């Protein structure tokens, strides 16, 4: 992370309310200003209900802000159509969730190569080779033909990381990627993300409750009650 790195994500005055127009309207994000730069390796911490997940979903284009401006790689994105958001998500972002969310009907290689399939309708030789290389890079070369149900929790999460990196997105969003894993597996997953960040320059934003993980990130963003307490 350097000051000169161009921003990937630039948020200004982002607000998010739920139940707009109803008596129970609640604002959960109260004006967030945040810039994430290319190649950054950042952690986001904060107590439960502080708005971490909401902010991550907003950055991940899974939800729209109620107010404010969101630029993704210099393109104003908050006013785009649903299909445009879907395409931006497909091309620019990778996701790793607390639960692996692999598709049980597909084997490990097919799961990793899924973005290629969404894009082109098929997995060609190049895509397959990249998926297998990514599986090898996360240490699962032997597991490529296995279904998610045949893999341990740590292995599943490693497949999920490989999947998030398949289309070489500039930013990977990880929502408590180690939240469900034992200490050893957590450490391994963290190291994996760190390595991809170093080797390919992929930026990571990792939501975590684990201070040991946050401490080892380059930057810690702290949310409290819908506001940034530390950025």
């Amino acid at each position: 992370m350097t000051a000169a790195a161009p921003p990937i994500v630039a948020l200004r005055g982002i607000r998010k309310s739920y139940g707009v127009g109803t008596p129970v309207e609640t604002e959960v994000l109260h004006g967030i200003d945040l810039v994430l730069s290319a190649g950054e390796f950042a952690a986001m911490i904060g107590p439960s209900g502080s708005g971490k997940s909401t902010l991550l979903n907003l950055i991940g284009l899974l939800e729209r802000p109620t107010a404010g401006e969101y630029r993704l790689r210099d393109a104003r994105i908050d006013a785009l159509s649903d299909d445009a958001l879907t395409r931006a998500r497909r091309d620019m972002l990778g996701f790793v969730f607390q639960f692996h969310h692999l598709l049980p009907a597909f084997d490990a290689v097919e799961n990793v190569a899924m973005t290629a399939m969404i894009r082109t309708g098929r997995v060609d030789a190049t895509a397959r080779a990249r998926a297998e290389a990514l599986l090898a890079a996360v240490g699962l070369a032997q597991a490529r033909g296995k279904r998610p149900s045949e893999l341990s929790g740590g292995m599943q999460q490693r497949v999920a990381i490989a999947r998030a990196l398949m289309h070489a997105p500039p930013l990977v969003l990880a929502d408590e990627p180690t939240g469900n894993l034992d200490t050893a597996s957590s450490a391994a997953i963290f190291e994996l993300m760190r390595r991809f960040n170093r080797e390919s320059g992929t930026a990571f934003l990792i939501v975590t409750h684990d201070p040991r993980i946050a401490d080892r990130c380059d930057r810690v963003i702290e949310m409290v009650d819908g506001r940034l307490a530390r950025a």
Partner: protein
Amino acid sequence: MGFPLRIAVRFLLEGRFQSVLLVVGVAAGVAVVTYITALIDGLQTNTIRRTLGVQPHVTVRPVKDTPLAGSLAVPRPPTRSSGNAPLPGTASPSATVPSPAVAPAEVELTVEQPRAQRTQSIDNWAPLMPVLEMLPGVVAVSPMASGAALAQRGEGSRAIALIGVDLPRYDRIAALSEKLVAGRFVLGPGDAIIGRELADDLGVQLGDRFTVALGRDTVESMRAVALYDAGIRDVNRRNVYVPLRTAQSLLGVPGGVTQIDLTVERVFDAESLAQRLRARLPFEIESWMQTNGQLLSALDAQSISTRLIRAVVMIVVVLGIASVLVVSVVQKRKEIGILRAMGASRGQMTGVFLLQGAIVGAAGSVAGAALAWAMITAFSALVRGADGRPLFPIALEPGMLAAVSLAATVCGVLAAVAPARRAAQLDPAQAIRL
């Protein structure tokens, strides 16, 4: 198409039990629809063949004589003035004075009475034949001269319908040759083909002579060259077939015919053909649909019931598929959510579920067709008439099968519309969190 199709196939293979249930449900529906359709089609074809196979579909007859009309002039009661007639019962005293200026008016009374019909004939039938034969959809045209007569032999005497025909042409309408029980199917001058019952009544055997009488002076000796059995005794007693020329001279219509019969390729086209002919020919033209109204309404009732059954079955199939797919959308919320998060569009997710419906419909069609074939084979083998032959033939028409399969596939897609919309509308953020 690639992505939705692959996902759809995997989703179906993953939920194997559900998928099998779906396909079996569709197959049962397709089998019932196919079977009912084939059964009713077979029944109707059989009914039509048995009744319409031996009678013309359209008949051309000369126009009947107009009614007798007589008229006579009756003096009208005198009125005061022609333009101001008093209402009955309101006559003023002056009304008794006839007005010299007004001539006694006349009222015309008409007595109409249906006229006894002479034997009417179409005299210019010969040039009409090629014209009728050229009409699209017409498969046979047969001239006929017929009238009432008496058949006599010794003491015996029976009222008959003397039917003069060109035998090969008539055979194409009524398939008389198939009903022959004795003799040869040829009509030479002086020959007659008579029914079995009439032969018994008159004591006529093959080759015997009998006389046909129309009035006192018109008597002709005929030879029974063949016996037929139409399957209806009254017909066997009445109809006597003779050469056209013989009938013409006996009936006093030399060179003319009393009727031209037409058979059409598709029986339900008969009325439209009759309508076209009515506009062009100065004759009385009737289709079987007018003369056999009851048969037509019976056939219609069957067709409507079949359609109703088909519609209900299709609706049940659609609801069945839809409910299973709706459950499947709920079960696969997370997967749908993650696919959407990874960049699958709403359109692609819609496609995944529509294709599942289509695949289930198509697979069910194949299984259903096989089941229908088995049911029809079993029906043909097990349900037989008294003579040991199948009651009526049931055929599995490829065209009908294709139509039912297409309908089932379309039903599958229709059933998937609501689930597909739900899948597409699913909020990915919410789906993943749950």
